[in-house]
């Protein structure tokens, strides 16, 4: 074996270059650093805006998740609520619980016994919902008739706002001086407490802010979105599959593609007008129904789904198709068994984007009438309902001070729904991917 010897003579070190090249190299490094700095600054600005936005919403809306409760000594006087002593459901249902509350207030503040003005003032501290609470308790367990207890009842929104500090401790809060005095007394005695605001999630809309809840809007949005997904996903994917795999490539398909791309950019209110005309006027479907809302949102999200599904289908490598067809699979088998499953993650991503847009769309829903004040929770998709973004709009337009915080709370709930939807879809997408 001959040996190979390395000569150590005039071999230049790796990395030494001329002076000009060195200057250019340094300039390149500087340019790269600047570029990265730009990127970081952009991200920082974006994060800053995000922090400011979320921060302000949370700051305003956090307080809406608590509700002020006032402790009152309530006597379930049989004479008042069940004079006949039958304990009959109907009678108990329509009994006069207001009197019980007034009596309880008198017991709490004995000094108002003879002062009618004071009595009226103090009643302003308690919410109308307190009666409903008492009614619920009695109907649930009629045996409590005749007993007395200290019960926490929801306070009025005026008292609530003062306690939270959103309203000033004076006339502007809606409470008179006398009421405010009793308010302070109750607070000093520890009879005013803030608890979690369950009404926000269990009640429908209401004129009383303290009783206003989102459940109606959530169910309405849910129905709308369910109908949207059920219609737009199959239609969109089928259209994309046809256009991408089966249609001949000629001028007509080019025309269709251009039109679909345009439709994706059309303002959603135009779809609202279209829905108004066709679904409500021509077809006579019920106004304000999530069904119609869903149909309108389908129109909005269909172009997005078609476009992203087409892109996902185009991204499936051609050798998969060749392998399937080389084995003797027909075109339909090739698409159904191989191309579509492989394109699914991309299609799901497109669907997520489309649905995320749909849940926040209010313009088409406003056009078809989901802007009405709906108190009941819709039982079916054809009952009148409202939707989350519309609810936000309605509450934002209300004069009561308490609705300010509730508007922000509604926005937070909307964002949470969005986050849950996104997470679900990303989970589904990951699950499809792992199966390979």
């Amino acid at each position, binding site marked *: 074996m001959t040996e190979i010897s390395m000569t150590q003579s005039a071999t230049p070190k790796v990395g030494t270059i001329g002076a000009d090249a060195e200057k250019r190299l340094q300039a390149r490094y500087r340019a790269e650093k600047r570029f990265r700095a730009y990127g970081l600054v952009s991200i920082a600005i974006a994060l800053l805006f995000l922090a400011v936005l979320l921060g302000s919403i949370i700051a305003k809306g956090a307080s809406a998740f608590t509700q002020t409760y006032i402790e009152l000594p309530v006597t379930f006087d049989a004479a008042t609520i069940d004079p006949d002593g039958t304990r009959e459901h109907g009678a108990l249902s329509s009994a006069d619980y207001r009197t019980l509350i007034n009596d309880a207030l008198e017991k709490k503040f004995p000094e108002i016994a003879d002062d009618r003005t004071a009595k009226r003032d103090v009643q302003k501290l308690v919410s109308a919902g307190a009666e409903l609470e008492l009614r619920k308790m009695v109907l649930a367990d009629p045996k409590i008739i005749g007993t007395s207890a200290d019960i926490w009842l929801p306070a009025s929104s005026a008292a609530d706002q003062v306690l939270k500090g959103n309203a000033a401790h004076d006339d502007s809060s809606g409470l008179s001086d006398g009421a405010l005095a009793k308010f302070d007394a109750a607070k000093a005695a520890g009879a005013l407490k803030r608890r979690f605001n369950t009404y926000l999630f269990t009640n429908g809309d209401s004129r009383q802010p303290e009783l206003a809840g989102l459940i109606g809007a959530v169910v309405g949005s849910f129905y709308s979105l369910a109908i949207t997904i059920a219609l737009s996903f199959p239609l969109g994917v089928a259209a994309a599959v046809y256009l991408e795999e089966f249609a001949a*490539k000629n001028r007509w398909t080019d025309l269709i593609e251009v039109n679909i791309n345009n439709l994706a950019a059309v303002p959603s209110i135009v779809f609202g007008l279209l829905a108004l005309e066709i679904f409500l006027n021509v077809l006579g479907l019920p106004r304000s129904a999530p069904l119609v809302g869903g149909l309108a949102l389908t129109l909005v999200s269909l172009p997005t789904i078609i476009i992203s599904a087409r892109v996902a289908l185009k991204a499936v490598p051609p*050798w*998969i198709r*060749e*392998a*399937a*067809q*080389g*084995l*003797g*699979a*027909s075109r339909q*088998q090739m698409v159904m*068994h*191989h191309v579509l499953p*492989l394109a699914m993650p991309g299609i799901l991503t497109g669907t997520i984007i489309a649905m995320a847009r749909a849940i926040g769309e209010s313009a088409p829903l406003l056009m078809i009438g989901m802007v009405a004040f709906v108190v009941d929770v819709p039982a079916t998709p054809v009952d009148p309902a409202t939707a989350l973004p519309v609810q936000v709009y309605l509450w934002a337009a209300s004069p009561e001070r308490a609705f300010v915080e509730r508007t922000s709370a509604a926005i937070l709930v909307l964002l949470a729904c969005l986050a849950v939807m996104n997470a679900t879809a990303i989970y589904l997408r990951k699950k499809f991917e792992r199966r*390979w």
Partner: protein
Amino acid sequence: MISEAQSTQPNSRPSSDAVKMRATGANVYYGEKHALKEVNLEIKSHEVTALIGPSGCGKSTFLRCLNRMNDLIEGARVTGEIVLDGHDIYDRDLDVVHLRARVGMVFQKPNPFPKSIYDNIAYGPRIHGLAKSGPDLDEIVISSLERAGLYAEVKDRLNEPGTGLSGGQQQRLCIARAIAVSPEVILMDEPCSALDPIATAKVEELIDELRENFTIVIVTHSMQQAARVSQRTAFFHLGELVEVGATEKIFTNPQHKLTQGYITGRFG
């Protein structure tokens, strides 16, 4: 020490005269481009026929005519007659899907489906109705893997994805997938060009074994591979078939000057 078994030259099995496929006057146009010109070629049964030639000479184009894969290319037009066992494969009454079950294909880049190994092999038999499920299908899958020489290596991971195998194993998986539908002819388009020498040798041994039961047509840009593997070789140049003959003759004493020039490396 003379072994009695070696009294005749090995691999000198007399080539059968049975013709499995025949192309007569085959032309292929890609739009305006005349890619294949008046090709007349016979593919004999139970033989390996190699198609060689420089890049762009039309050998892959011709191969793809044999199972009508050119139909899938926009703007491709095939004229002339190509018959399988005497029947024209471009006949309107012939179901292309059925043709492709009789004439299988293995591609240059190993392309297993992103499914389990079992499902890869089982896909063909399922869609052609050869077996629905259960023990029948199991048997087809196992025997295909065995014939491809892959079963021993994968028998305890049939449910793992086919894409997790090495390149050589993937290509043998594709071969197993092709033979699972019991084709009569197997077309191979440069099957070893993406493989290392050891994997290539395994595939070539496999082709030798498969010859007993199938007719094989292989396109290769390696003349050495054509020399090792085939019994008949056809040399293509600029879309025309220049020379075809017994492999030994083509590589030791070709008739045409172009063939000689290509084989000795004097051009292309």
